[in-house]
């Protein structure tokens, strides 16, 4: 790997995005609008908003980055630019790290705005530090990038790539404890939710919500999300083949 090539790749991905301001606006505004909506949907029960709002701060970056990365890498595969890059002296790690850096930067902007809005304007009541919310949000964005990259290898078209979102994200959304605490679910479902990374993203957010300090559980949750992201990124790297049929 080469730092200059990684940075050049990240700069290129961001430059591509800059030519598409509508996508940037959607990525950044939609989470804020959703939080605003939820705040007033749960107008009568602020506690519900606290719990769901904090969870969503972790889920938004995951979903957005999943979608953006799966489409972007699929375009790279189908446009022939991936084949061209892999015929050039570019390490697979440079490409993946470049994407992760570029979308990570975007995720920081998205998370800062969404977290800031939720905590300061919408009165989301967090006991812990808002910085920890941000940290989990960033790890979630990385996980979303990793999943998107991995899944794009199995999609033959952008149409299929979008269909992977309900397949990969929705089951995690239902089982992650957003609707009901995970330990109150049917034991089989709880067991399944124990191996899904989004569950730990939501658990981590709830730890920050309820505890003033960094708890052991929080560290464990954050580490699991980070480890999953790295694992899936490595799997994604394995799907980039220099030689293809």
């Amino acid at each position: 790997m080469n730092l200059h090539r990684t940075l050049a790749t990240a700069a290129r991905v961001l430059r591509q995005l800059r030519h598409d301001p509508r996508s940037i606006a959607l990525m950044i505004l939609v989470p804020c609008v959703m939080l605003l909506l939820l705040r007033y949907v749960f107008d009568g029960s602020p506690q519900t908003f606290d719990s769901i709002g904090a969870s969503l701060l972790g889920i938004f970056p995951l979903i957005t980055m999943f979608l953006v990365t799966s489409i972007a890498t699929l375009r790279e595969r189908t446009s022939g630019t991936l084949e061209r890059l892999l015929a050039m002296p570019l390490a697979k790690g440079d490409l993946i790290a470049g994407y992760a850096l570029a979308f990570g930067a975007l995720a920081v902007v998205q998370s800062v705005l969404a977290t800031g809005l939720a905590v300061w304007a919408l009165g989301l009541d967090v006991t812990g530090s808002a910085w920890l919310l941000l940290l989990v949000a960033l790890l979630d964005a990385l996980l979303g990038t990793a999943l998107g990259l991995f899944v794009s290898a199995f999609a033959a078209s952008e149409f299929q790539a979008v269909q992977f979102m309900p397949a990969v994200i929705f089951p995690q959304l239902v089982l992650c404890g957003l609707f009901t605490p995970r330990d109150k679910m049917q034991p089989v479902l709880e067991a399944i939710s124990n191996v899904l990374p989004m569950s730990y993203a939501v658990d981590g957010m709830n730890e920050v919500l309820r505890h003033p300090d960094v708890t052991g559980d929080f560290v464990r949750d954050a580490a699991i999300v980070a480890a999953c992201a790295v694992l899936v990124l490595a799997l994604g790297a394995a799907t980039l083949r220099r030689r293809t049929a």
Partner: protein
Amino acid sequence: MMNIASPPQTQAASAATTTPAIRAESLTVERGPRTVLRGLTFAVPRGQITGLLGPSGCGKSTLMRSVVGTQAKVTGTLDVLDHPAGTPALRSRIGYVTQDPSVYDDLTVRQNLEYFAAVLAPGRGTAAARRHEDVTRAIADVDLTAHADALAGNLSGGQRSRVSLAVALLGTPELLVLDEPTVGLDPVLRRDLWNLFHAIAADRGTTILVSSHVMDEAERCHRLLLMREGEILADDTPDALRTRTASETVEAAFLHLVDEANAR
């Protein structure tokens, strides 16, 4: 109208220049259940334009992908610039243009080239200055200076394929592999590109392997590889081919060879 600047560094003449640029021996490629290339043996000489001609679906693209090292399931011997095809050391020495223009539509022409140049020759300072020169030269080579700041996606089909060609010209590669670079271009542009290929081969000593399914382009090559159904029908100069088959054109020579092969 195409400006050819001299290469930034002249290539060191070495003893290696006596070996062919590409040497294949019983080269076989399988794609799924199909054998796309069947035991090909041929050599491509250095510093010349070798045309790879044959009907679409005969295996031209597969052969080119094998040479640049992006094709899977390649068996037999395939040496490119004295290294086995696909060796990492070759990646900066070969320029490759795929059949469909592989550039980023949401970047400008210059941004596209700057990125690929940074992948080829990373670094800051003098490396960045040299890259800037290289990019400007490549854009001038394909006559897109006036469109340097236009988004690639807003260009016409012919212009986009020239952006793709410009990327392959970055870094003065020793071998250019061009997969149907003139398909869909108007006659004037086709003539200009062929003039560019000849200038690159003559001035920079670059070896060019170029595919086409338009037989009249064959006359412009130094040597020809005629392909059909995964096999090589002929490996000769255009003149020798016409003489051998007593034909007026390369197209007639090709048809003659096909009939001959079918009769066997």
